[in-house]
């Protein structure tokens, strides 16, 4: 078998060396009644050619986003990723290396993490960032728990503009940990009164900007209200490119910034693997979950990098750890970092501008269709479209016409009275032809 180097005679020699007659002797501790006799009911080994054929057949049963005009975001964004990124992350030394616990032979990974941490801190305008979490939603949940530890309170207030699945993740964690959550109603127009929900028992306020409905928000007054009550502001984002166009968490006095990094360097991959970004103020660093790469020197005085402040983590602190996280999202963080290194601040700002310009042009086209309303006064690259038709069936109708038109809000927020709303996203990958196709298809669907 192509992945198993030992042959029969070698196995025999090894058994002799061990001093047992057969391989079953090494499985003797398994209770006799529970040993599998023969093989399990599954197909036998297949050649590479056969496996490729089988998997390709399955792959062909999904529609690839790049093959149609595509306008769906809502937490995951289709970006053009430079060819360099995927090439580099497939280098053996990045792809098949382990967590850098032996720093002498892991300086590649450690230096990349140090650069990544710096990039995330710069992007969010915060002081320090960790080496990644699983994704934006779990980073959000971890930020909530961190706020509880810092304030010694356990009541969080969650904006109605936070991605509904992020809300569910926080709610599940809170319920299990015995914490309290105040969930504000879905906030289509960013006009909820969050400050009114904050009191002296609030540990944190969790607000997304740009929010789930595409509205950029000014979180500065919310930060002030939170701080006045001894609570923390957690600012969330779902597209890292947005931070190059709208005000960043740090500029708005957030205490913790968390978000999804998939939008740089990482393909859509039907929802994972993604990469959680997590940044905070330097004074909170000991309560921050996740790994941290730090700078030091080696025995010859050469600058080096090493995982540090490990006493926060599970392998040392065990039940008193800041989190149970072990494996994070190293390779996805690398992809994010390479993409951002190629872009630089200048390129990222220009990329954000193109995203915004494309969204603006799309909005203009769509709003020209009778009975189509663009809800948002302001947006970055996502906005809400309202039509007389129920959004879910409209999206299906558009799909039949070869256009992926966005997310029907009712899919993630059933029963919120927003069944006529679609969240439409636009990135730099959309062309003028795409926009024309969408407008055309939408126009016919609404006749």
């Amino acid at each position, binding site marked *: 078998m192509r992945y198993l180097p030992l042959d029969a005679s070698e196995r025999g020699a090894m058994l002799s060396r061990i001093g047992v007659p057969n391989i079953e002797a090494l499985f003797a501790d398994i209770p006799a009644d529970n040993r599998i006799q023969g093989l399990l009911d599954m197909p036998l080994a297949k050649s590479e050619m056969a496996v490729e054929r089988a998997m390709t057949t399955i792959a062909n049963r999904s529609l690839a986003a790049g093959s149609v005009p595509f306008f769906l975001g809502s937490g995951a964004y289709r970006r053009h990723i430079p060819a360099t990124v995927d090439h580099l992350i497939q280098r053996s030394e990045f792809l098949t290396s382990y967590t850098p616990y032996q720093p002498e032979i892991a300086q590649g990974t450690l230096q990349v993490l140090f650069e990544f941490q710096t990039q995330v801190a710069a992007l969010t305008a915060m002081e320090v960032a960790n080496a990644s979490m699983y994704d934006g939603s779990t980073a959000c949940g971890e930020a909530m728990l961190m706020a509880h530890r810092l304030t010694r309170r356990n009541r969080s207030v969650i904006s109605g503009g936070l991605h509904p699945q992020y809300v569910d993740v926080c709610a599940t964690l809170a319920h299990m940990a015995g914490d309290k959550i105040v969930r504000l109603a879905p906030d289509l127009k960013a006009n909820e009164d969050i400050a009114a929900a904050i009191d002296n028992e609030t540990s944190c306020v969790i607000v997304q900007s740009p929010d789930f409905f595409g509205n950029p928000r000014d979180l500065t007054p919310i930060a002030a209200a939170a701080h006045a009550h001894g609570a923390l502001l957690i600012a969330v984002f779902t597209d890292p490119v947005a931070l190059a166009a709208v005000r960043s968490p740090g500029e708005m006095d957030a205490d913790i910034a968390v978000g999804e990094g998939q939008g740089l360097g990482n393909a859509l991959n039907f929802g994972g693997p993604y990469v959680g970004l997590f940044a905070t103020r330097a004074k909170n660093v000991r309560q921050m979950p996740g790994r941290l790469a730090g700078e030091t020197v080696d025995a010859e005085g050469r600058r080096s990098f090493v995982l540090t402040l490990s006493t926060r983590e599970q392998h040392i602190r065990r039940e008193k750890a800041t989190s149970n996280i072990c494996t994070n999202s*190293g390779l996805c963080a690398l992809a994010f970092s390479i993409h951002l290194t190629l872009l630089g601040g200048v390129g990222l700002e220009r990329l954000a501008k193109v995203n915004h310009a494309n969204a603006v042009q799309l909005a203009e086209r769509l709003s020209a269709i009778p009975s189509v309303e663009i809800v948002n006064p*302001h947006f970055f690259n996502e906005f809400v479209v309202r039509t007389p038709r129920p959004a879910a069936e409209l999206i299906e109708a558009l799909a039949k016409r070869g256009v992926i038109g966005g997310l029907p809000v009712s899919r993630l927020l059933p029963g919120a009275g927003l069944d006529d709303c679609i969240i439409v996203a636009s990135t730099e990958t959309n062309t003028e032809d795409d926009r024309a196709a969408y407008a055309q298809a939408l126009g016919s669907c609404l006749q």
Partner: protein
Amino acid sequence: MNVQGRPTRPETVASSMGETFTGNRGLDMEEALIFETGRFDATGVDIDEPPSFHSKLGPHGRHSAIELPGLTEPEAIRHYVRLSRNNYSIDAGLYPLGSCTMKHNPRLNEKMARLPGFADVHPLQPVSTAQGALEVIEALSNALLTLTGMDAIAMSPKAGAHGELCGMMAIKAAIEARGEGETRHMVLVPDSAHGTNPATAALIGYSVRSIPAGEDGIVGAEAVRSALAPDVAAIMLTNPNTCGLFEREIIGIADAIHEAGAYFYCDGANFNAIVGKTRPGDLGVDAMHINLHKTFSTPHGGGGPGAGPVVLSSRLAAYAPVPFVVREGGALRLIEHADGCESFGRMCAFHGQMGMFVRALTFILSHGADGLRQASEDAVLSANYIRASLNDVMSAPFGDRPCMHEALFDDRWLKDTGLTTLDFAKAMIDEGYHPMTVYFPLIVHGAMLIEPTESESKASLDLFIMAIRNLAIAAKAGEGRGFQAAPVHAPRRRLDETRAARQPVLRWTKPAPV
């Protein structure tokens, strides 16, 4: 008092004049940070300026510039290629890391994961346009259920620790559904457990009661019985355990747990030892996470991404988190909302680590029932081969007995040499090996845990054994100084970890103008 401290600073910090002008040593190259080599006004991506348009950002535009350097493609490739060469990797050599299962990462997995029908599919596309993606989830679920003999599976956890959290949340939900949420607040955890186990229990409000391993390195059913009380919600047991041994009293343990009205969580990190040989479902397990990045070959990537799907018994199936994939007639549907069913909620946005599912499914299809069983047998065979070849020069904590897929040694054999497990590990680096897992499990002094996996040829195993034997003999012959200076051939010598923790520098900062 925690006795896990060890030296974290090199003996000498002497700056050495590089023998070369560049500081490079042939192919062994120094590489600065992008913030030092890149230009802050440059970009390596060509993006056309959009035609003029009316901004819709309103008052929300960012004010401060993002000060990050850009590198052109040739500069970027050189930067990352040079960095990569400072990393050890499975592709370059054996990683004997116990409990990590550093097996070969098949390249077919990478090719399949990049098919547009897998990689370029958005999680929220209309489900009718994502049937292939759902089929991968269904096929992998079925395979994992067959391999484990369990009744249901939660696919969404993003890593092993996340899977532990999922399994324990399902248990907590089941207990609350029985109305015993107030009384059962204790979780039994062997003292040999991985740190994620007690950390997970604590995250959801459980207290931990430690169970000591016996003299033979396994958990006794009697020890479990004595620790059981009406306040126990669950036990978290690793099988095979972190000492590399099969918990042979597992049936008795499972019975005791269930009789007491508690649940059996199994940490499946070491599943590679028993795939195709026994099924956790037959052993009384209620929930077990599977590390796809261990047993099923998805690449470690320098620290993730992983994937930690959780198989569940019929006792817990109803509480599985959303989303799950169901087949209705000819089509696959995604259940995304927990209302209307007993699901305990949601672990993460979207549907799980699809990219890792494709890789794991490709691995399973490649190996098949026969290949998977052979892989486990070879993993166990190789570990025992190493054990039998080293147990005359190194000491094993639980006597001369077979292990499963990993061999455990302690540091008693280093007594009187003045050397520690750490020194021995660093000397391995100069021999071209990543050290084995050290100082884990915590119950064994100076532990050394070696797991070769099934991916090593006999020649590779023999070379490894030769190197370790000779190092062990040298250590015992009193050649201490070489060990304490090691590594000398790696890109870096021992690091000052004390300084890194006392004066944390966690990012590059622009130097103040002179």
